[in-house]
């Protein structure tokens, strides 16, 4: 990468000339704008940014960004993005995907990209429904949820994206409500800074097919009481009054009230996102009340491209082959006169 100073961009530099065609009121607009605002803060050059998506409403995203991009095929963005990044590690590569795209058809690729830890960023638009195909249940839909393909209620138990991701060795996992643009912008910036695969799950409202699916936790009125926004190094405190907190009771997280039953601020767990052991992160991911948002895990580890580069340098240094010719003429060759 050239080290010339990066031009100062505004969000307008990242908006393409294409008309955005999501349903009015869809959270996808919020995510798009948050990204357009985050990018100028990242210090990356516009030409070095690549968005790769699969298929679904969310996957139309790259068309709306004035960067390099590819709207690819259903579920395969992780493979394509991995190829982009391995071919040119200087690029800032983003995967845009939905719950169906990432966890149904692309499930295999989703777990493997996390396992490998290539320096990519994944934004998972989770609306617990298939939007583009008009409302079938997805792998995150709830049991009993009535959809076009489950008129009597869904019988397939759901994945929790965070649990699945941590099980697949995700080093960075964050969760954020689709109606929280400021925090979202900040998370995108953090994800870009993080060296390794980062995954951000956005709880995205689909106004058409699953309206209000997260409203119990994301509505302005209840948000502070129902969510805990985690920050590394800070105590796990939440609530309108900032008086609720999390402690560890045996093998379970427990909600306590500061000032009740002798609980003081000192008793509250301090969030360590950078801990290698994912046990507590798993517990936080599973917690239903309060719902954990913010960066839950952020453990920096060797990336795949670092491993590959080191190996390549070592092989190159020890190799007697400099050009293909030296390989072709090596070993058992013979002359015909």
């Amino acid at each position, binding site marked *: 990468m050239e080290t010339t100073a990066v031009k100062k961009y505004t969000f307008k530099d990242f908006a393409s000339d294409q008309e955005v065609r999501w349903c009015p009121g869809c959270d996808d607009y919020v995510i798009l704008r948050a990204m357009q605002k985050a990018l100028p803060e990242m210090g990356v050059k516009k030409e070095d940014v690549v968005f790769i998506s699969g298929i679904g409403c969310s996957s139309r995203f790259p068309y709306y960004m004035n960067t390099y991009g590819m709207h690819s*095929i259903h579920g395969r963005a992780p493979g394509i993005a991995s*190829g982009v990044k391995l071919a040119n590690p200087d690029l800032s590569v983003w995967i845009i995907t939905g719950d169906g795209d990432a966890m149904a058809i692309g499930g295999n690729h989703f777990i*493997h990209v996390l396992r490998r830890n290539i320096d990519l960023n994944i934004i998972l638009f989770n609306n617990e429904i298939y939007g583009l195909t008009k409302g079938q249940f997805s792998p995150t839909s709830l049991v009993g949820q009535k959809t076009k393909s489950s008129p009597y209620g869904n019988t397939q138990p759901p994945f929790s994206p965070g649990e699945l991701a941590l099980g697949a060795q995700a080093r960075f996992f964050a969760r954020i409500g689709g109606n929280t643009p400021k925090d979202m912008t900040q998370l995108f910036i953090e994800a870009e800074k993080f060296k390794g695969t980062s995954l951000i799950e956005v709880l995205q409202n689909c106004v058409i097919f699953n309206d209000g699916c997260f409203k119990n936790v994301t509505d302005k009125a209840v948000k502070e009481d129902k969510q805990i926004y985690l920050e590394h190094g800070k105590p796990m405190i939440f609530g309108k009054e900032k008086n609720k907190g999390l402690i560890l009771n045996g093998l379970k997280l427990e909600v306590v009230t500061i000032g009740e039953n002798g609980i003081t601020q000192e008793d509250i767990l301090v969030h360590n996102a950078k801990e290698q052991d994912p046990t507590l992160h798993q517990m936080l991911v599973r917690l239903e009340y309060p719902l954990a948002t913010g960066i839950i895990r952020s453990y920096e580890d060797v990336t795949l491209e670092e491993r590959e580069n080191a190996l390549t340098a070592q092989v190159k240094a020890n190799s007697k082959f400099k050009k293909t010719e030296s390989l072709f003429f090596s070993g058992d060759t013979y002359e015909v006169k």
Partner: protein
Amino acid sequence: MIKTTTTKPKPEVLEAVIIRFVGDSGDGMQLTGTQFSDTSAMFGNDIATFPNYPAEIRAPQGSLYGVSGFQVHIGSVEISTPGDKVDLLVAMNPAGLKTNLHAVKPGHTIIVDTDAFTKKNLEKALYDKNPLEDGSLENYRVIQVAMSSLTKEALKDIKGLDNKSITRSKNMFALGMVYWMYHRSVSHTTDFFNKKFKSKPQIIEANTKVLNAGYYFAETLELIPNSYTISPAKMAPGTYRIIMGNTATAWGFLAAAEKSGLELFLGSYPITPATDILHELVKHKHFGVKAFQAEDEIAGISSAIGASFAGDLAITTTSGPGLALKGEALGLAMMIELPLVIVNVQRGGPSTGLPTKTEQSDLLQALYGRNGESPVIVIAASTPANCFNYAYQAAKLALEHMTPVVLLTDGYIANGSAPWKIKTVDDMPAIKNNIINKPTENWHPYNRDEGTLARNWAIPGTPGLEHRVGGLEKDKISGNVSYVPENHEYMTKIRAEKVKRVQNYIPYLETEFAETGDLLVIGWGGTYGSLYSAVKQLNEEGYKNIGFAHFNYINPLPKNTEEILSKFKKFIVCELNNGQFSKVLKINFSRFEFNQFNKIQGLPFGNQELIEKFKQLVK
């Protein structure tokens, strides 16, 4: 019984000979065969080899399905196939004899290890009686040698050698005998031992001893009345090596990457018989090769598409079922018009079919196995050595025409080996690419080259060329999503026209043996050697009216195909499938009547069956 001959008889000179080594999968038959063929190649013979091993990794010892074989055809004349019927069979056990006897020419020689013909081994090979005793081998010259005991005897003075190493080296006894019979020096093999077992002097000594013991045993044995020699072949001067098709394919890509100045990216998932291309390319990190073993075929091709988008020479390798999985992504690559090479080393199908056997039945899948109007370039290599050229050519066409190219090879040429006159990158034609480095006035991602119709290749990281591609139909110029009906029709046609125009950049079809005549033998891909040698033999017998046309370019077909066809009266299209290429010809050249010769046994064509068929058509 063994008598020392005092005067060495003069070896009888032969033009060519076909030898097959067979034994249990643990008997080292592949090594034995390779040593013999390498020695013969270095002596100056033309050669063709074919290994044939069981699909099971470790089949039970002595079982019929655990037989491993290696066939080698050497000659002072041009050799184009490993041959079908053999002049000499070396069978290390009853199972090997039983499964390969049918291939021995009557009156010809079989060498057996009598020590292996035990009651137990005979039972495992489902023999009721010992074939060495019941007269059933009357029509052959059987040389019975107690190889295991003679090996033991030869090694009795080497201290501390374990039993396993002793039994293992009996294949070298057989090799020694064959070296004497065909007047070959053992030195290439002893050099090989010295290199391979550098740190194990005992193993070097043991193998060398057994090899020589076999050699001298044959020399002094009355049972082998004479030795033969095959003079060096007339081959173009130069430096040669023996190369396997899969290695040649991998190396063709290395050369193309070097010539084009791009880095090579391979995204792949293991499948027989394509895996060796992956095995070869992962070794070459020193050339900057990025080889990515993905979680499945879909991720394999997807990663290659990503790498191509980012400016690498991207390839993906697979075999039939893998190509089926890659179909959707291949359609995407075609739609977004990026360079990409997909190698399909064909095997017997459908489904998992016959994984270790050869077939040509993925042709229609390569041409049409995708949704929508989805033309791609399809080319096929035809010999182990020319896999190098066609891999190179596939990369060149993909880069110059901005399109996916399917390169078809098959198990037969991919595993077979032959001499390759080494080519350097300087020997290969130039490769242009369509990368653009800065925006021109009015730049659009779908601007096309007037000649090739290739679009320009704008790579992430280039300022001013930011753009989006995708699988949705796109406007003919801007590349933005467009569902305008006329635009879709236009784009469908221009994508087809782009592939059609490749005709202007590929060689004309040529016929061999006759330019006009009564019969044109038509083939494509890996059957070249079999068809060529059959037509050649007929030509030598006086059938001067039979021509041979072999296709390496299938989509598009060479420009002069119709003209070539119009010079012959009858046609026979020979394929290892149920008639796929003949369908293609019928669609394109409906005024001709195409006869078919199809074999669907997982086996290559035999010489005799072709010759009989061709004779019927010209009588």
